[in-house]
């Protein structure tokens, strides 16, 4: 034994990054659409991180002299009613929209995911209570519930995030519950019991990591809906505070200009919204295909 003291450290860390890259390469080359989705995600992340530094105009600066101008060399996406540069606003809005999506999903993952796993893993009363909560939430028309929550708590970004998280709770809880229930009597879980792991420990160290990939798919899909949901809330006047640039609110405001011919005001934020939702959906589909053992031949 003493002869190979370096063995453990040698073993560790071998092939981690390379294997991941290789896997990613396989995934992308296997399905070009998923590759496209990853590329789109990259674009979004770059826009979210560097957006405010790279935009050509101040997204909040009005210029009533150049209001409602169609796309041109100066204003790539045109200007809105107050003469603000739509391109800059669209880019800067990426951060907020992604933040809404990411935080709401993180929140619902933490709440719904854990509740669902516990329900599936422990069964019994835990399962019944979580099930009832889900049923109750599901019995609401979800968008109206979100509206109600935002209307009741006030229309701030935080509340939009909370509302979005609440309406997605059943989705997460159910997926997590189903996956946990499958694994609850799995050999490796039993084995972990034998080695003296407590139930909660098993839940966190054995079940959760195995459910993560499936939850990732769910998260990716919900991110898209979270953005759409925020947009819907904006349409009925429950969106973020002006003059903050946010895609949904820009589309909603621009929508009234479609008939009068200023199509660019709604179109570009709409396309960005579509771009992001599209990206998350494709990504989710792609991840599902990767995660789903059915796909592994």
């Amino acid at each position, binding site marked *: 034994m003493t002869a190979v003291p370096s063995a453990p450290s040698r073993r560790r860390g071998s092939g981690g990054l390379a294997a991941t890259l290789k896997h990613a390469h396989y995934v992308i080359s296997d399905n070009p659409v998923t590759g496209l989705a990853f590329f789109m995600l990259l674009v979004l992340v770059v826009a979210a991180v560097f957006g405010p530094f790279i935009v050509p105009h101040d997204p909040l600066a009005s210029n009533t002299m150049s209001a409602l101008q169609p796309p041109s060399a100066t204003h790539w996406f045109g200007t809105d009613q107050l003469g603000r540069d739509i391109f800059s606003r669209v880019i800067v809005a990426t951060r907020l929209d992604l933040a809404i999506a990411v935080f709401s999903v993180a929140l619902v993952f933490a709440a719904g995911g854990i509740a669902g796993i516990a329900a599936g893993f422990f069964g019994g009363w835990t399962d019944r209570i979580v099930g009832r909560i889900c049923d*109750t939430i*599901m019995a609401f*028309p979800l*968008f*109206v519930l979100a509206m*109600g929550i935002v209307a009741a708590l006030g229309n701030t970004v935080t509340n939009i995030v909370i509302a979005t998280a609440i309406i997605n709770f059943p989705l997460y809880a159910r997926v997590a519950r189903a996956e946990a229930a499958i694994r609850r009597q799995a050999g490796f879980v039993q084995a972990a019991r034998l080695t003296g792991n407590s139930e909660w420990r098993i839940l966190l160290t054995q079940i959760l990591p195995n459910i993560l990939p499936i939850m990732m798919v769910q998260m990716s899909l919900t991110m898209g809906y979270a953005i759409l949901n925020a947009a819907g809330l904006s349409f009925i006047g429950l969106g973020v505070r002006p003059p903050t640039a946010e895609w949904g609110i820009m589309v909603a405001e621009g929508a009234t200009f*479609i008939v009068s011919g200023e199509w660019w005001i709604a179109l570009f934020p*709409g396309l960005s919204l579509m771009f992001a939702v599209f990206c998350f959906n*494709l990504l989710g589909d792609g991840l599902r295909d990767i995660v789903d053992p059915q796909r592994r031949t």
Partner: protein
Amino acid sequence: MLKLIGSRLATAIPSLIGVVIVTFLLTRVLPGDTAAYFAGPAATPQAIAEIRTKLGLDKPLPTQFVDYVSALSKGDLGTSLSTGQSVAHEIATRLPASAELTLCGLIFALLIAVPFGIAAAVKQGSWIDHACRLITTAGVSLPVFFTGLLLVYLFYFRLGWAPAPLGRLDVFFSAPETVTGFYLIDSLLAGDLETFRAAAAQLVVPTLTLAIFALAPIARITRASMLHVLSSEFIRTARASGLTSKTVILTYAFRNAMLPVVTTLGMVFSFLLGANVLVEKVFAWPGIGSYAVEALITSDFAPVQGFVLAMAILYVALNLIIDLAYGIIDPRARSEA
């Protein structure tokens, strides 16, 4: 079968109670002061107080809740302040409008998405698979109100193909006699083809708007479940028995693949009812969704409560139907009941 229905309803009761409580609390937390709103533009504090008393809003919350529940148990959903009519009556007249639109959207979406999903699964990895994914995802990527406005702009304003977005019927038609509340059915029952056409024409664009939104979840689940079924062993048996691809795909694979699709339909329907709220606003559709939104914005509790309760009951009923449908398709589910 009866036992199944019974036990389903029994499990639904706690959810319904939950819905009633949550809705009640939520509407009371709404920031608007209903009394002030309805006292009119120049009300004095006394006038507001008078209205508050009139509306019973000065009572403590538990008392209000008891009042609400006891009224509810008598089937009284209260009166909407903003429209001035009994909520039960309004929901009864508006629900068919929403249901007709949502069902049309759902059926239309199914007609497109299911074959699309099957094709995508059968030709997995082919251009049709990618096209299915791209098209349906694009449909769900746009906010539904935006799609609606674009379609109105295109088909009504620009092209003039669609009738004016003025609700369920052109102004110069009168509604058919109410039997089901569904204009399409009622007009046929009345033998009035003119009205049927007019109602159908009004439905086309909003239906399309909703359907575009519903394509993705249906196509996605159809594809996934077809893939799953196609890779199962009994399909191999069927193929090894020399059955034609048509039989294999439709009789063997598709019926099995329908099971998850049917289960998902409940969620898609609920999802569409949410989207409906926005679509109704765009198309001036006299449905229950636009009613609820207006009520919510004006802090008008009774309609919000009534709406949510109606939706919850609808949801329970829908799930019951889905369970029954599941039982019809899957003998295993029947025997468990």
